[in-house]
C-alpha cells in the first residue's frame, strides 16, 4: 500500500502518546513499517503536543512534512487548526469539538474553540466532528484517545480492521484499564455508524 501519515494533535496530558503507539503497533502487526515522533518533555504539562505516525516503507522523516498528512486526529479544535498546515489537500480530520481552555490569559480574548471549528468546517471537506458531551456519556474521559482510534478505524481511515485495533489495545493497555478502553474503542468505532466514509 501507499504511505499513510497520521498526525495527532492535542494538549499535554490527553494521551496522544498512547494513541500514536496504538496506531503504530497495529500497523506493525499487520506487516507495515512504521516511524514517527512524540512530544515529550515540558510541553506535556498542558502545552500543545503533536504525535506523528508514518506508515509505509518509504518515509524517512519522523516528523510529517507540511501538506503530507493524510489523517489528523485532534483532541481539541484549536490544536486541530494548529496542525492544519501539515494536511494534504484531501486529508481527513476527526476531531473532538470541545475546547480545552488554557489556564493563562489569552491575548486574543477568551478562547472557546468556536472560530477554530468554523475554520475546520470551511476548509476540511472530510471532517468528522465528535461531540464530546455525547461521547463522554458513554466512555470514561480518560479513554478519549482510544475512542478517537476507534472512530478512525470505524470510518475506514486507517488500514486496520477493528480486530487488529482491539489487539493493539490489549497489547498496550494495562489489565486494569482494559475494559474501559475496549469499550471506548467500540463506542468510537460506532460513533459514525450512520456516516458513509
Amino acid at each position, binding site marked *: 500500500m501507499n504511505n499513510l501519515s497520521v498526525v495527532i494533535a492535542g494538549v499535554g*496530558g490527553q494521551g496522544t502518546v498512547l494513541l500514536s503507539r496504538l496506531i503504530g503497533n497495529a500497523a506493525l502487526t499487520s506487516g507495515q513499517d512504521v516511524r514517527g515522533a512524540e512530544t515529550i518533555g515540558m510541553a506535556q504539562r498542558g502545552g500543545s503536543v503533536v504525535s506523528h505516525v508514518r506508515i509505509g516503507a518509504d518515509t524517512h522523516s519522523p516528523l510529517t512534512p507540511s501538506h503530507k498528512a493524510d489523517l489528523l486526529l485532534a483532541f481539541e479544535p484549536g490544536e486541530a487548526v*494548529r496542525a492544519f498546515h501539515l494536511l494534504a489537500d484531501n486529508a481527513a480530520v476527526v476531531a473532538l469539538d470541545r475546547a480545552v481552555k488554557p489556564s493563562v490569559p489569552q491575548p486574543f480574548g477568551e478562547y472557546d474553540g468556536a472560530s477554530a471549528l468554523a475554520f475546520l468546517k470551511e476548509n476540511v471537506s472530510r471532517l468528522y466532528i465528535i461531540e464530546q458531551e455525547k461521547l463522554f456519556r458513554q466512555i470514561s474521559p480518560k479513554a478519549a484517545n482510544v475512542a478517537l482510534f476507534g472512530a478512525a478505524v470505524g470510518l475506514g481511515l486507517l488500514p486496520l480492521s477493528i480486530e487488529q485495533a482491539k489487539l493493539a489495545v490489549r497489547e498496550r493497555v494495562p489489565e486494569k484499564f482494559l475494559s474501559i478502553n475496549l469499550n471506548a474503542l467500540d463506542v468510537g468505532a460506532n460513533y459514525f455508524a450512520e456516516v458513509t466514509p
Partner: protein
Amino acid sequence: MKQLLMGNEAIALGAVRAGVSVVTGYPGTPSSEILETVAKRCREVYAEWSVNEKSALETAAGAAMSGARVMVTMKQVGLNVASDPLMSLNYTGIVGGMVIVAADDPGPVSSQTEQDTRRFGKFAKLAVFDPSSPEEAYLMIADAFDLSEKIKRPVLFRPTTRVCHGYASVELLPPLDVKRDTRFQRNSRFVIFPKLAYESHVVIEKTLKELSTADYPRNTLEGAGTLGIATGGVSHAYVSEALGGQLNCKLLKVSAYPFPVGVAERFLEGLTDVLVIEELDPVIEEELLLLSAEKKINVNIHGKRSGEVKNAGEFAPSEIAVIVNKFLGKDTAEATAQAPSNLPIRPPVLCAGCPHRGSFLAVKEACKGINAVFCGDIGCYTLGNAKPLDMVDTCLCMGAGITMAAGIKRADESKTTFAFVGDSTFFHTGISGIINAVYNNADEIIVILDNSATAMTGGQPHPGLGLVANGSPTAKISIENIVQAIGVQHIVKANAFDLDEAVSAVKSVLDKQGVRVIIFSGECIAVSKRRGKCVIDNDKCVNCGLCVTKLGCPALTLSGKTPTLDETLCNGCGLCAYVCGKGAIACE
C-alpha cells in the same frame, strides 16, 4: 522480528546487545528513557540513577577501567556537569568500551541551551557518533563500543530529540558475542600526572588523525553531479524526504567524528556548490571549508555561515525541503488555506493538583509587602514562573538557585532572597550550595520542594525515596537530616497542600537571620493517587474569579466571569477552596 521502538529504547537495547554490563546516568530530556529501558527490560544489566552526571560518569569510569563495557546517559547540559572527569578520562584511558550518550536538544524543546555535543567532542578530543534514526542508533551503538575498546578511550554518542523521541520499527538482532574478563588490574596510566597527560595527548592526536582518514561504513557518499548536499543526524532524514527518492546530486552523510576527510574529499571532487544541512552548529560546514582550503578545492559552500540555513532552533522537514529544492533549482508546492493566527497560547504549566502550586502560593502570600527575590532552579517548579504565580526571577542550571540567592544578597542588601529547589535537584548539586551558604554566613531562605520524584523527566526515583532505578529498596536519605548536619539553624517543615500551615511556616522564618530552610512536602500527582474532587457551588459563588486568577490551575477556567472546574482534570488538592473567600468550593 521487528518491534516498534522509541529511539531511546533502541539505544538501550542496542547497548545491551553489544554486551554493556554497567549503565549509569542522570535523568534529562530527551535522554531519560534510555536508562529506564535498561532498568525495566534488562534486569541482568546493572543500571543506576546516579545523583548527578559527574557521579554517573566516574562510576562508569571505574567499571570501564576494570574491563566492563559501560554506558553513561545524560542530556547535553548534563555533559557540562560530567565534563571534568570526562576530559581527564580521555587522557588516562579505559579498558572496556565506554560510551557516553549525551542527547542534544535542538529547539530547544526542553533545555536551557542549544549546545552541540559534536563541538564538545572536538574540544575534548573524543570520537562522536551521530545517529540519524532509531534503527541506525540500535546498530551504531555497537560500533561505538567497538571503537572505544579499540582505542581504549571513551567515545561520545549524541542522538538528538527527534531520534530519542522518534520511533520506528526496528529489527532486533541476537546478542553479539562479547566475552568480558572484568577485573581491575593496576596500570600506571590510571593515575593522571602532567607527564602522563603530555604523553597521552601525543597518542590522542595520532589516533584522531588516523580515525579521520579511516573509512567508517556509516559515513556514506551517494549520487553524482556538480551539486552536493552534506548532512548528518536527523537532518539526513529531512533531506532524504525532500529528495523523495530521486538523487540528482551528490549526498554526503557524516555519521561519526573526527570529521572523515577521506570520504569528504571524494565528495568535494567535481562539485561547484555544496549545501550543508545540519542542526545546531555548522560543524560539517566548517570542516568542509577547512578541507577545501587545505586541498585547494574551489567550491561554494552554502549553509549557516552563508546565511542560507538558520543557525538556531530546530529544523522542520518542510523548511529543509524548501532550501533543498531551491538549491537544486526545483519548485516547492505552496500552501493553500492560511490557518488563523489567533490560536490559543499554551505555555506549559504546573499540573492540576501539583504540590508546587501550594508552595509558591504560600511564599507569595507570606511575602506580601516584602522586597524579595525568588531564585528558581531546574525542574517542574521552573513553571512557577508562569502567570499568575509569577514566582521565579532566575533560573540558570541545576543547583544554581541556592548559590545565586546568596550572591544577590551580597550585592543588594535590601532584598530578602529565596531559593526554590526540588528534591532531586537538592541531591544533584543543591547540597554543596547549602554548605557554601552556611560556611560563608549567607542570608537566604531555601525552600525545598519535596514532591517524592524527579517529576519533569517522568518520575524517576532519587536518594530520598528509598528506591533504586529498577525499583528495588535501598536506604532512604533524609533531606532534613542532611540540612541539619550542615548546620542550618532554622528548619521548618510544612504540608504543601495545607495553605495555612505553609504560610505560617514561611512567616516563622522571615524575621530570622542567616540560612533558613523550609521543607514543603506534597507528592507529585504522578506519584500519588487522586486525592478526591472539588465542585463549585454556583449558589455561593459570587463570580469574583479569584480561584482562577490567583492559581493558574489548568482545571479552573473562566467562561465570561463564571468559573468552571473541569472534574476530569481536578485532583482535589483543595487549593482553590482555600483561596475562595466565599466557601463556594467544596472538596471531598
